[in-house]
């Protein structure tokens, strides 16, 4: 238990200074690191032909966001589709099918990082180390830029003091925000985390898989290939950017991606570090420290209670083991070096921040642990993904202010701006939309035999939800009889 408390304290203690540093980064304040970062940034602006002082309205900012996503998605698709003819493919891996390439490109461009491939077997070093890593840097930087723009807009834009009524507000420059986010926040942090992970044993090489001769020659395994690659570079940004898509199929449960308890602690802190820092960054950007602490307290209370429930749940026995083994926690799908508590902590935090990396099989969690994971994902505002999580939280704040305004019979206002029907309609649709998509689209895959696959078959065998009508009647009759 002590280790869990310690990890949480370290994470918060690191996030507070990081948050104020990030506020400086996005408000363009002077910083001692300018001498190092500014030349890099001006080089990047020159290469991209961006004029950093150019302002954007919400329309142009949003347009730039959509366009850069679309183009990066197309580039990603093409690289995945043609990885077999591109360099850095020592294990001679073939191309992805068009649908898998499309799925992967969309998945990483949206910071979802859902993987329908096994990284070590289906992606070349170029696809993983070059493309996926880039998407893992750029997609959270884009989310952070959107968050920063929303915060600027909420307080009337950069030109709030000078703008006349009805004038377009200045939200800053999208490309500048993305570049500063990548160069000043994500790259330096990833560099540190990657080297720490490499020290703990995460592979970092461009040579191919290592082939070994297992010790037990009588076993059914005659040879073993140890897949390696530039893993540490990717594992770092995967955690820091709330990306979650790992190098190996089993993600951070794989001992090569997460070799020791210490690497697990580093990776766990990296999950929540920037999402917590964003809360304090917001306070600095809008000049309201109290708002930051209110948001922090709200999220922390939810986060701690979700996490505690998950830890409690995983410390209980797995129902399938009762009577077959000694009493013990739920170890199905968990690694011995982490045990139930570090696995539960990770499971709770990774779903709250919509990170999605795992160090244990979440499907094998006990029911309460699974419930907490699902709740964290649906709320997506307890820390939440980098940038997007805090935007979601602001949406909840706006709605709460609107509702409380209705209750006391005053025109609801936040930061000097009224919230009326015009604002509330799109805000509430943002809350309904995810649930609508999930519930509305879920029946479609269930209709198809192929998509239902074996998973639902198991589900039907083990749960009594999907019984046919005669079965149900028979059970009712039996229950009634006796």
């Amino acid at each position, binding site marked *: 238990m002590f280790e869990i408390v310690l990890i949480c304290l370290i994470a918060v203690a690191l996030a507070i200074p990081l948050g104020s540093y990030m506020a400086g980064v996005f408000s363009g304040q002077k910083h001692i690191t300018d001498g190092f970062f500014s030349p890099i940034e001006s080089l990047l602006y020159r290469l991209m032909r961006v004029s950093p002082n150019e302002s954007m309205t919400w329309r142009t900012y949003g347009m730039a966001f959509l366009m850069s996503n679309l183009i990066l998605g197309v580039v990603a698709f093409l690289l995945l589709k043609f990885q077999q003819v591109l360099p850095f493919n020592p294990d001679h891996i073939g191309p992805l099918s068009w649908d898998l390439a499309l799925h992967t490109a969309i998945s990483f461009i949206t910071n979802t990082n859902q993987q329908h491939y096994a990284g070590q077997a289906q992606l070349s070093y170029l696809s993983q180390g070059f493309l996926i890593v880039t998407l893992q840097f750029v997609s959270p930087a884009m989310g952070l830029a959107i968050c920063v723009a929303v915060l600027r807009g909420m307080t009337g834009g950069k030109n709030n003091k000078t703008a006349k009524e009805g004038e377009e507000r200045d939200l800053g420059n999208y490309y500048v925000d993305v570049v500063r986010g990548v160069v000043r926040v994500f790259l330096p942090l990833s560099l540190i985390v*990657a080297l720490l992970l490499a020290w703990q044993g995460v592979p970092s090489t461009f040579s191919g898989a290592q082939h070994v001769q297992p010790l037990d020659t009588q076993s059914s395994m005659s040879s*073993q290939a140890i897949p390696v690659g530039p893993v540490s570079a990717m594992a770092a940004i995967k955690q820091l950017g709330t990306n979650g898509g790992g190098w190996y199929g*089993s993600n951070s449960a794989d001992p090569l991606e997460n070799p020791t308890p210490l690497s697990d602690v580093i990776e766990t802190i990296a999950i929540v570090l920037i999402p917590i820092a964003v809360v304090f960054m917001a306070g600095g950007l809008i000049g309201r420290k109290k708002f930051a602490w209110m948001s922090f307290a709200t999220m922390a209370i939810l986060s701690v209670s979700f996490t505690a429930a998950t830890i409690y749940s995983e410390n209980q026995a797995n129902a*399938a083991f009762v009577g077959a083994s000694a009493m013990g926690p*739920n170890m199905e*799908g968990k690694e*011995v070096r982490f045990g139930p508590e570090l696995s539960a902590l990770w499971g709770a935090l990774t779903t709250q921040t919509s990170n999605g990396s795992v160090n244990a099989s979440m*499907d094998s969690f006990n029911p309460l642990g699974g419930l907490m994971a699902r709740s964290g994902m649906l709320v997506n505002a307890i820390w939440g993904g980098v940038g997007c999580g805090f935007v979601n939280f602001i949406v909840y704040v706006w709605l709460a202010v609107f509702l409380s305004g209705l209750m006391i019979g005053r025109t609801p206002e936040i930061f000097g701006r009224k919230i009326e029907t015009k604002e509330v309609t799109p805000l509430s649709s943002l809350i309904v939309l995810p649930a609508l998509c999930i519930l509305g689209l879920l029946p479609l895959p269930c209709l198809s035999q192929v998509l239902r696959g074996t998973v639902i078959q198991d589900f039907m065998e083990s749960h009594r939800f999907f019984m046919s009508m005669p079965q149900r009647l028979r059970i009712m009759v039996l229950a009634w009889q006796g």
Partner: protein
Amino acid sequence: MNAKVTDDLHEGVIQWHQGGLSKQIALAVRMSLVMLVLCGIIYTGSVTMVAQTLFPFQSTGSVIDHNGKPVGSKLIGQLFQSADYFHGRPSAVGYDPKSTGGSNLAPSNLKLRAEVEQRSLAIQTSDHVTASQIPVDLLAASGSGVDPDISPAAALLQVDRVAAQRHLSVNAVKKLVDQHIEHPQWAIFGQARVNVLMLNLALETLSDINNTQSK
């Protein structure tokens, strides 16, 4: 200053609208390429190169040699089935590091119950113990399918069998297990554990010494 900022802003907005779609596409393409070079090549390349120089053993997968041949990775578990070796945890992927993963079976799944019971019975027969003596981790498939470790209790459970198979004294084998228990890192993080491959390698050496002595 105020008037100038407003004017600049207007100009910026007008420029953007005039440039139109093709300008935005071109800008997005340039950004994609610049970011691919910065994050994909420069970052990945420099991290990998520095890590390789600083940590040569870890960087290539912590592969260990036995009798001059690479026998496995310290981090990756292997399939041990012979009775004269310590066995690792059940694996949903047969200890293949190329297709790692867990069983993903829920606690309510009857298939999991059946598998656990079968594993329990197998260990009860091979190690002459009762079900309530078998530590959970020896029956539960790991998340990666290549978990290199077992709990100290799971190792101690197998001592009698391994000692008998190898004609070694129970005490010598037990001492070997004790030597291979890794305690929580920095006495705080993680659980106590035994690396099965390292333990079995030490076991080999112990048997070799014993054989030469008895000859």
